[in-house]
């Protein structure tokens, strides 16, 4: 770290250490193998240079045992590093159950974040230390990618779908937030800082952002303003599925399949309602495609999720199918 030259990235999340352990182990293997081959090739080049007195009897152009040995050794090493990397990778899909959920929206050329309490920030993201944070990512235009090098996390935000990325920050501080997927003219300007705060500072930061209404509340207002409650409300006359506690639960479909009502399903049900009809209901819902933008979709999602939180059967992680 002398002379201001950096060799290693900061480690500031709960997974950074384990990713780096794999990185440095692989680096040690690569350096060892590279050194071995360098010594071998340079050694041969010197020893068997033209005109040298080295003994050249017994030269061979093939050796089945040797070739088998390095093929098998390569396979074994490959499988070890494959398995190690895969085990660390699949936990991306399993966020801790009690995470703070923040809506993240990528657009040319900025990141917009909205906290559960309604606090909104651009190119800045304030998170508490030691607490799991899930950023639910969407994009308004092209593909962007949420990248915080110090956390070793990266996730593309693809238009037309949502994707979650989670992390637990371990060190208070300010860390680079980048867009990693090339997104047009000002791609390199798209980013800012993630500020990790101690819990009490985080609480006071949230308080200092003004008394905005929560994301779920805004979503609820939107739910009524768009007329959703006319059919999906508790006292509606039109027969539409009730939505209390729907999030994360299995839904029986008219085509006899069952899907989990995750973000993908709820999003599609708003934008392409006839794609997956709930069993026992008529396909009468109109599409809201073009009537709600990505930010409003995220509010509606927060509202629908808040309905589920009252449900006692809320599953720990949405990927785990019940039973």
């Amino acid at each position: 770290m002398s002379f201001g030259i950096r060799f290693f990235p900061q480690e500031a999340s709960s997974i950074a250490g384990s990713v780096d352990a794999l990185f440095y182990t692989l680096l040690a293997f690569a350096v060892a193998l590279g050194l071995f081959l360098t010594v071998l090739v340079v050694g041969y080049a010197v020893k068997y240079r033209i005109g040298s007195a080295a003994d050249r009897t017994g030269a061979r152009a093939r050796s089945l045992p040797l070739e088998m040995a390095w093929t098998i050794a390569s396979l074994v090493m490959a499988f070890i590093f494959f398995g190690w990397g895969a085990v660390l990778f699949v936990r991306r899909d399993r966020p801790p159950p009690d995470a703070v959920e923040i809506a993240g929206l990528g657009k040319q050329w900025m990141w917009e974040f909205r906290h559960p309490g309604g606090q909104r920030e651009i190119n800045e993201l304030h998170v508490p230390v030691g607490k799991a944070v899930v950023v639910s990512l969407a994009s308004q235009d092209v593909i962007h990618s949420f990248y915080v090098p110090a956390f070793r996390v990266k996730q593309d935000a693809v238009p037309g779908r949502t994707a979650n990325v989670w992390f637990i920050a371990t060190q208070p501080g300010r860390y680079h937030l980048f867009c990693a997927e090339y997104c047009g003219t000002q791609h390199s300007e798209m980013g800012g800082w993630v500020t990790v705060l101690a819990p009490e500072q985080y609480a006071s930061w949230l308080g200092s952002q003004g008394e905005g209404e929560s994301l779920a509340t805004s979503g609820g207002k939107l739910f009524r303003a768009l007329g959703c409650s006319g059919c999906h409300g508790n006292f509606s006359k039109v027969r539409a599925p009730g939505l209390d506690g729907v999030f994360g639960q299995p839904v029986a479909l008219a085509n006899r399949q069952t899907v989990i009502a995750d973000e993908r399903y709820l999003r599609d049900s708003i934008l392409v309602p006839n794609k997956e009809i709930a069993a026992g209901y008529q396909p009468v819902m109109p599409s809201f495609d073009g009537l709600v933008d990505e930010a409003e979709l995220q509010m509606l999602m927060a509202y629908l999720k808040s309905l589920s939180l009252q449900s006692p059967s809320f599953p720990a992680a949405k990927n785990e199918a019940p039973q």
Partner: protein
Amino acid sequence: MSSDLASASYLAEGAGPRSWLLTTDHKRVAWLYFVSLTAFFFLGGTFAVLMRIELATPAGDLVSDDVYNRLFSLHGIIMVWFFLVPSIPATLGNFLLPLMIGARDLAFPRLNLASWYVFMFGSLFALASVVLGGVDTGWTFYTPLSTLYANGFVSTAAFGVFIVGFSTIMTGINFIVTVHTLRAPGLTWFRLPIFVWTLYATSLVMVLATPVLAASLILIVLERVFGIGIFNPDLGGDPLLFQHLFWFYSHPAVYIMILPGMGVVSEVLPCFSRRPLFGYKAVALASMAIAVFGFLVWGHHMFVSGQSAYAGVVFSFLSFCVAIPSAIKVFNWSLTLRKGEISFETPMLYALFFLALFTFGGLAGLFLAALAIDVHVHDTYFVVAHFHYIMVGGMVTAYMAGLHFWWPKLTGRMYSEVWGRIAAAVTFIGFNLTFFPQYVLGFLGMPRRYHTYPPEFAFWHILSSAGAVVLAIGYLMPLLYLAWSLFRGAQAPANPWRATGLEWQTSSPPPAHNFDRMPTVTRPAYDYPMKGLTEKRSDPVEDLV
């Protein structure tokens, strides 16, 4: 063969423009390609140097962001499709494949010439997009940026790439048929030089993968021009579909680019070690394994795209598998040196540098195949460094090795050995100075395709930019001394390196019909130290070495 009995060289068969532009001689078509590709290489290289100068400081001070985005997009498009994909196959491969298998020409000589015209026609579109105002999508044309949001001449550039694809397919078909049907008597599959094996494997990939690229580019133009929803989610499309289609072509295309380079090195290392290639069969079969496995790993470009985690795990596994045949080759090349009589002429220097740089790039590939690490370094300079070590450090270095190795055969002239060795060394130093710092940058988290960057990355960027200047000098030097050798170089003997291989059994440069007497093959490839060719040792040209 004594010179008074030898036929006139192919270069003596007319000198006017018609004799070149209407030729069906594979050796002259190779030169048409060689001149065009050299121009594209230096055009793409100029864009790269401009980028590196811009990146010497964190702020954007040389060019605007729009210009910078055009520089890296055109650098990628030109280098991949107008240089790397055709490079070795269309130049050295075109010239040498018939000579190496003892044939008079390729199976379809007119198709061969047509492929060059198609290539030039397609490249006109690419050049038109440069002149009109450029493209700013990156070489990957990701949707919906390319279809809905890009403000450059995307359709023009994509159409150019589409057309050039047909030229690639033509070359592929021609090579496949040639290898199957025109081998000299006695030249069985397992007596073929590895260069022929790799050209064959490359041709298979060209013929099978290029149509998928063509389909995806057509779909882009359909969506961009006619508003048909394929990749645009607002129209019911899926942006990730494009990535699947694109990488289904573009990952195998990486092997189109590197396999012929592996072939060249497999010719050069045995020759200057005076040893047979170690584990010949394993190297030949590994080339085929790379061609097959190369089709199954495209998803490793999409680990963080939103594709399912389980797909990611499968693609990671297959990506580790495709590393095995490459590792096998590296071990075989290294063991070839054992107990040899090694000399260090220019082609050998380039081949040894290839071995080092390819190994280094390949090992970095393991990091990228390991899922958890890729999440961190995906779309950073780590990836940029990795594929430049393979594509430039590997492929272009092998191209230079081959160019110097066969230059006497191509031109009938010897180049300056001193300048050749100096250029090889300058290239090696410049390359590592340019691209090694980019590994560090990537690990530190520096994203790629950034016009400006945080100041803390400046140290490594400055090293990289300095290296780019050295590298540019290393590539300009051969342009000068090779051109000089055309006029002033010493006459080349038929076999200046005392190499095996049928191409060395005819004069330098060869006659238009390649061989005065059709050769018959009785020995395996790489029959060093030339035991089977003792009758050739009385050839007066041998004494020149």
